[in-house]
């Protein structure tokens, strides 16, 4: 498949700008160069591959910050009656004021390609040879037959009641 397709597959997204760049690269994927391969010359023929491609990307970033007020009466004696420094030293769990924050992000993507046809150009003419994916057709056939069988059985059961 084409360089645009490979370039998209090898994308990493770490910042928002990179995410937007990945979306921009989706537009490049809609160009004909993505689905039509480079012409290859062999044995007096020129061969061009044609493939169907689909790709998707999703990402999100988020962040937050918060602070807590210092406990009322800072500097006062603790519950045990000890001064704050001594209470801390004694291992008392006393909340102190502060600011915290964090941010994170994530993303993911998918891409798929499937050959559809081969274009052969020779002195005799131009031929488009379709590529048949027998496995996919067989899977679709089994799924269709299975669903038909399942529905027929359910209807038969329902009519008996």
């Amino acid at each position, binding site marked *: 498949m084409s360089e645009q397709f490979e370039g998209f597959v090898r994308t990493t997204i770490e910042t928002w700008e990179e*995410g*937007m760049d990945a*979306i*921009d690269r*989706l*537009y490049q*994927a*809609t*160009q*004909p*160069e*993505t*689905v*039509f391969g480079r*012409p290859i010359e062999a044995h007096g023929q*020129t061969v*061009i591959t*044609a*493939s*169907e*491609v*689909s*790709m*998707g*990307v*999703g*990402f*999100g970033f988020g962040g937050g910050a918060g602070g807590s007020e210092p406990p009322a009466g800072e500097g006062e004696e603790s519950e045990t009656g000890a001064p704050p420094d001594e209470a801390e030293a004694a291992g008392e769990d006393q909340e102190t004021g502060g600011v915290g924050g964090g941010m994170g992000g994530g*993303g993911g993507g998918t891409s798929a390609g*499937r050959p*559809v*046809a081969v*274009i052969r*150009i020779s*002195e005799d003419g*131009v031929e*488009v040879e*379709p*590529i*048949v*994916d027998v496995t*996919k*057709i067989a899977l*679709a*056939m089994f*799924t*269709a*037959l299975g*669903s*038909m069988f399942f*529905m*027929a059985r359910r*209807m038969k059961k*329902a*009519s008996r009641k």
Partner: protein
Amino acid sequence: MRRGREWVESQTHLGAEIVVGDRVITPQSQSLSIIGPHGGWAWNRPVAILVRQGKETKRIPIVDVTRLAQLALFGASILAVGLAFIAKRSR
């Protein structure tokens, strides 16, 4: 960044011309893209090739046999279930 583009776009594109001997081949593709603020999806498929030889231009469609077979099987299963349902109701 995306500017002046639609969120959902379906377009037919013509690729760069490929010259082989006295023939000029122009690939044609069709794309569908759905773009949101946090991601997007794009689909692109070959549609046809335009072969220009002299003054004559011929369009050769690219048929996706696998997709057609899948759709036919899907349609057949829907039709079979529908017919069975109608037959059961008419009894």
